[in-house]
């Protein structure tokens, strides 16, 4: 009698497990191409529909291929992708941030695309940043978009404050002061919350690269370079004068900007799209200019993305079909004209479009003039980006908390980085 009970129990357990596993079994037929996109792409205005429409067309043309989307928040993208690839579970089409591409190429995780790209109709139309994905003649990705950061400003607030668009840090400071004094709104903002290490680092990059320097030089740490210190001191001055809000996350200041409560930021073109979609009346009052730092157009850092195919993908041919479809003129034009973003291939916009969105020409100029040094880790340390950034922000957080002035903090940072760099494998 007891054995019977045990058998019933065991069967129930097994049945439970089978039932729970069933969805997995059903979902694995071989014609599925899985496309991994970061979730910002879905919730960003317009982009969600864009991809839905493109996927619908793709599935119509390729009835044997189904596209499965997965989404991951932008902030976890890098870690999540590394872990996913390490677990041998790569998606078939992998969208990578531009600055992650070297990391993945270095580790041999991406499939060279030459055999398809050489015969592709769009191969000569790809934008300049494409060269990031080229290594020793092999091409590891196709540019999806380039998003150089620019200087976004609210004309109405600047006019109310009686200032012109700033072109130097000093002018920026004075403009912010005037905005605060005459309108009560914040003049400038950047990611001043150190808990999001990557965003805080990007804010520092905007100013240091904008001033023609960086946190590393010739493969060695460069934190206490006078230009780095000067850039960071400007940022601290803005905080201390309460012209930029402290403890601000990037989501907060973007929202403040499109709600018209913030006069100036350095950010990517996606924020323009947000303004247009969340607060349309404000759209015509927003300007997009080169950053008011020493390097101007050449000083903007880049976001952007690439399509890549992981080496472990089992549906590479099908994955390429997607890349081919999305690079057709129709979809590239829609990316530009509907989403106001720079597509991966060069598209000539219509006159009307340029008139309605004058800032796009500035955007194109920035994209053309920027250097290709953009990594979210200092050049030479791309493989160890997360740690490098952490060390820098650990010390910057001391400045943000008012515990140390910039120069001693950066000296300490330099020492820490040098000690750390010495432990790295060659």
């Amino acid at each position: 009698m007891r054995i019977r009970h045990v058998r019933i129990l065991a069967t129930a357990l097994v049945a439970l497990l089978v039932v729970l596993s069933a969805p997995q079994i059903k979902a694995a037929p071989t014609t599925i191409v899985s496309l991994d996109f970061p979730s910002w792409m879905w919730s960003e205005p317009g982009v969600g529909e864009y991809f839905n429409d493109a996927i619908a067309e793709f599935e119509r043309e390729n009835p044997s291929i189904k596209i499965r989307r997965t989404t991951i928040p932008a902030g976890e993208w890098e870690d999540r992708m590394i872990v996913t690839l390490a677990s041998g579970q790569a998606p078939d089409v992998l969208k990578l941030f531009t600055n992650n591409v070297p990391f993945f190429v270095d580790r041999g995780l991406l499939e060279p695309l030459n055999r398809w790209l050489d015969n592709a109709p769009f191969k000569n139309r790809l934008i300049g940043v494409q060269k990031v994905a080229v290594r020793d003649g092999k091409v590891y990705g196709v540019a999806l978009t380039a998003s150089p950061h620019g200087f976004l400003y609210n004309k109405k607030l600047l006019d109310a404050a009686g200032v012109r668009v700033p072109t130097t840090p000093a002018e920026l400071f004075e403009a912010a002061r005037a905005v605060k004094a005459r309108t009560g709104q914040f003049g400038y903002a950047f990611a001043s919350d150190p808990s999001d290490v990557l965003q805080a680092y990007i804010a520092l990059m905007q100013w240091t690269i904008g001033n023609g320097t960086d946190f590393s030089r010739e493969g060695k740490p460069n934190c206490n370079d006078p230009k780095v210190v000067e850039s960071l001191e400007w940022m601290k001055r803005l905080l201390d004068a309460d012209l930029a809000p402290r403890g601000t996350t990037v989501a907060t200041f973007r929202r403040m900007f499109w709600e018209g409560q913030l006069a100036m930021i350095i950010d990517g073109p996606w924020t323009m799209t947000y303004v247009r979609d969340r607060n349309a009346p404000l759209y015509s009052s927003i300007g997009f200019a080169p950053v008011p730092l020493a390097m101007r157009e050449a000083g903007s850092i880049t976001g952007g993305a690439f399509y890549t195919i992981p080496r472990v993908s089992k549906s590479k041919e099908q994955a390429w079909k997607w890349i081919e479809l999305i690079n057709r003129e129709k979809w590239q034009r829609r990316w530009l004209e509907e989403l106001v973003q720079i597509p991966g291939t060069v598209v000539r916009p219509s006159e009307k479009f340029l008139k309605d969105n004058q800032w796009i020409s500035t955007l194109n100029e920035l994209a053309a003039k920027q250097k290709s040094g953009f990594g979210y880790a200092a050049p030479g340390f791309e493989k160890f980006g997360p740690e490098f950034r952490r060390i820098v922000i650990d010390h910057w957080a001391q400045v943000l908390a008012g515990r140390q002035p910039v120069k001693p903090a950066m000296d300490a940072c330099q020492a820490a980085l040098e000690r750390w760099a010495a432990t790295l494998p060659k």
Partner: protein
Amino acid sequence: MTASSQRLALILIAPAAILISVVLFYPILHGVWMSLYDIPLLGPPPKFVGLSNFATLVMREDFQHAFRVTLGYTAGTVAAAFGIGFLVAILLNAAIFARPIARKLLLLPWAIPEVVAVLVFAWMLDFQFGVLNYLLSLTGYFPPKIGWLLSPDLAPYAVIAVTAWKDYPLASVMILAGLQGIPLELYEAARVDGATSFQEFRHITMPGLRPISAVVFLLLTLYSFKRVALIYIMTGGGPSRSTETLSVLTYLEGFKFFRMGSAAAIGVAMLAVTLVFTLFYYRFTMATAETAP
């Protein structure tokens, strides 16, 4: 045990034993094995390094720092959670009228998921728009805006506060049970002898609570030592590593810096510390129990 009962016992306990062995014990052993290797997540294959992960561990600045942070965090959380739990238990025990509802309400923080607690506290402690800064500024004794999560000096206290908020119900439930287990005759006898409330408290209540307090301290300490999700979501270990406990460091080492072998070494070190602590703790409480009145 008869032979057939032995077989029965084996069958009944088998599923639990198998599940725990596969899902918990095997990974632990694997983890110990991993700590002897240098394992980058992607790229070159693992390389045997023996005990060098551990040898360098003690020397490492970040390990030492994380150890200090863990001590501070654990001490602060245990003290705060025990203190609040004690206060709650004493008051609940005395307030007969409010007790039924109050007991359920005051248990809520325990039930609330960690993620929710972190989000709510982060919002209340927000620098610009948080309600705590607003309330403090009303008293006039505090500067207008305090960066609770932005300052390396204050962030640890914020994290301790959230943890204590989550942990005090456990302490209060157990201490309350302990209070209600103290025999009434002791108090009556003391009353007859003319003892004051304070003397009753000191000579009856406190010793009576000792066994349960020992358990509470142990549980609170073990939980604090292991806590990672709460801290990681709230501050990510920062600012400036001020809230980077050993468990947070292990996670960063493994999943942000991708040095799995070294992460496993830190985890093994943590496990060793926990085991040693528990051992000494039991020794200590056994010894004092024997000498108790």
